[in-house]
């Protein structure tokens, strides 16, 4: 087996007596389309926060492309190709869509700390940001402030900002959350259109979306991995039906 894009070993997190992640072994292959599902409170977002470094684990290790990054702060993991989106839009609401993406690109290119050069001049950052918006089909909103956009549109900006980091691993935390059904199609298409070399992990409640995109599924329950397999295996698994799919058949 080749080197995994992302790997965790025995990842644990507890807050006092409350254990929110216990012994999570997880492997995301290069170029994967992998979904992480589980009922509310299963620890999905905690897992994302542990992987990105927003939380530090009580025990266990995180590897990115074969390198142990457990001790690295969030920003350094981003530099190594780990990007995420947020379950609840976490954008620069008072800035334009274009600038939201430009800030991410500036950080990636390492020019964001420069003090005495006008941000818009000669860097190519703004042009690259605009091209990224064009690829996602939201270029017409480039000059609008994020807070003026409908929520579903903002979900696309979330993805655009993450892509601006040129990630090797992309964690999408409920990309379709809060998006009306009519608009979620665009999100699905956007995710399907992501470059094949990016390893994508989707945390999602929407089973239609999961079964449409994921080629591998991990089910999390009460902070630990219940089962992992192909979509067919997961759909057939009686334990999964019990904890999760009980009231709803997959499409």
């Amino acid at each position, binding site marked *: 087996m080749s080197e995994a894009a992302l790997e965790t070993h025995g990842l644990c997190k507890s807050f006092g007596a409350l254990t929110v992640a216990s012994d999570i072994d997880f492997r995301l292959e290069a170029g994967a389309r992998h979904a992480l599902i589980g009922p509310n409170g299963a620890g999905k977002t905690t897992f994302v926060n542990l992987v990105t470094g927003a939380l530090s684990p009580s025990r266990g290790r995180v590897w990115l492309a074969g390198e142990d990054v457990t001790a690295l702060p969030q920003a350094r993991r981003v530099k190594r190709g780990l*990007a995420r989106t947020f379950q609840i839009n976490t954008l620069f609401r008072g800035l334009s869509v274009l600038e939201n993406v430009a800030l991410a690109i500036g950080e990636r290119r390492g020019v964001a700390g420069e003090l005495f050069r006008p*941000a818009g001049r000669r860097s190519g950052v703004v042009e690259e940001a605009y091209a990224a918006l064009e690829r996602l089909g939201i270029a017409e909103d*480039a000059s609008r402030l994020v807070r003026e956009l409908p929520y579903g549109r903002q979900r696309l900006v979330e993805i655009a900002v993450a892509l601006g980091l040129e990630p090797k691993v992309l964690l999408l935390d409920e990309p379709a959350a809060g998006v009306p059904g009519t608009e979620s199609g665009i999100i699905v298409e956007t995710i399907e259109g992501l470059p094949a070399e990016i390893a994508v992990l989707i945390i999602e409640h929407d089973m239609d979306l999961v079964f449409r995109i994921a080629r591998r599924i991990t089910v999390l329950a009460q902070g630990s991995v219940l089962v992992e397999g192909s979509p067919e295996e997961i759909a057939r698994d009686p334990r999964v039906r019990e904890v999760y799919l009980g009231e709803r058949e997959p499409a």
Partner: protein
Amino acid sequence: MTTVAEASRSAGASAIEALSRRHRLRLSEALPWVIALACFFAFPGYLALGTHILISILFALSLDLILGYGGIVTLGQAAFFGAGAYTAGILAVHGWTEPLTGLLAAGAVAALLGVVTGLILLRTEGLTLLMLTLVVAEMIREGANKADRWTGGADGLQGISIAPILGLFRFDLYRRTSYFYALAVLFLAWLAVRAIVHSPFGRSLTGIRESITRMHAIGSPVLRRLVTAYAIAAALSGIAGALLAQTEQFVSLEVLSFARSGAVVIMLILGGAGRLYGAFVGVPLYMLAQDQLAEQFPIYWSTGLGLLLIAVALGARGGVLDVWDAALGWLRRSHR
């Protein structure tokens, strides 16, 4: 089909243009300087007040960098103002009377203090940070009070004499030199701050204000950015303090007081924080109102000032500049 593509291309060009042109100077930006020069000739009897206003604008401008752009609310900015004032004052008392190097030394000491305290404080957020800035400033004030061999303690630092600026311009009784000195330093500081807020660094500060969580997630070294901004703001505050020490030729513990830290926040917010010109509007408005009210109502003047602030807090959260923008927008719409 081609027209749609063309339209979207030109929309793209204009979006890119808007970002890449933002740093260019506009004619209206000359206004503060024209007014400052006009005031020199129009009110020759008020140059002492004018000098104070210019110094306070510099102080508020430095605060704008971290409060308006970085989103850090602090109640301890006077720590840096005072550190600069005492540095310049103590140097002068001990024979270092050259003013420009005195200013630079004051800026350097304040910046150092900014780095040291910033590295500790800026790991916290919100109310904790607010309280810590207050605590640090109070500690420094008490330290200055106790170190009376150096600072003169509660009696103030006396016996400051300053050599002529560049060996040419002697500080005069009418405060003409003081006024121009403060104006020139403010102008240079404004150029620097203006360049910084339009730089990639300045935009990333705005990003931190808008969403610190997102800044972490795009790989930004948030703490380093904040400490850098904090140190630059501290240096400029220190220079403002040094200007006061040199032009007044006296330093009292008031330069480190909570009242000064609080007033500068109020003046900046009154004008409009995070817009570069809030300091230029808020400070003169506040200080002139204070001056006039104190003259008219020697006992109740602070009530008048309080009412003014309540009006701004209720009716114009973005400060006077925000009201101005709204009025301009309304005029433009009604003319169409």
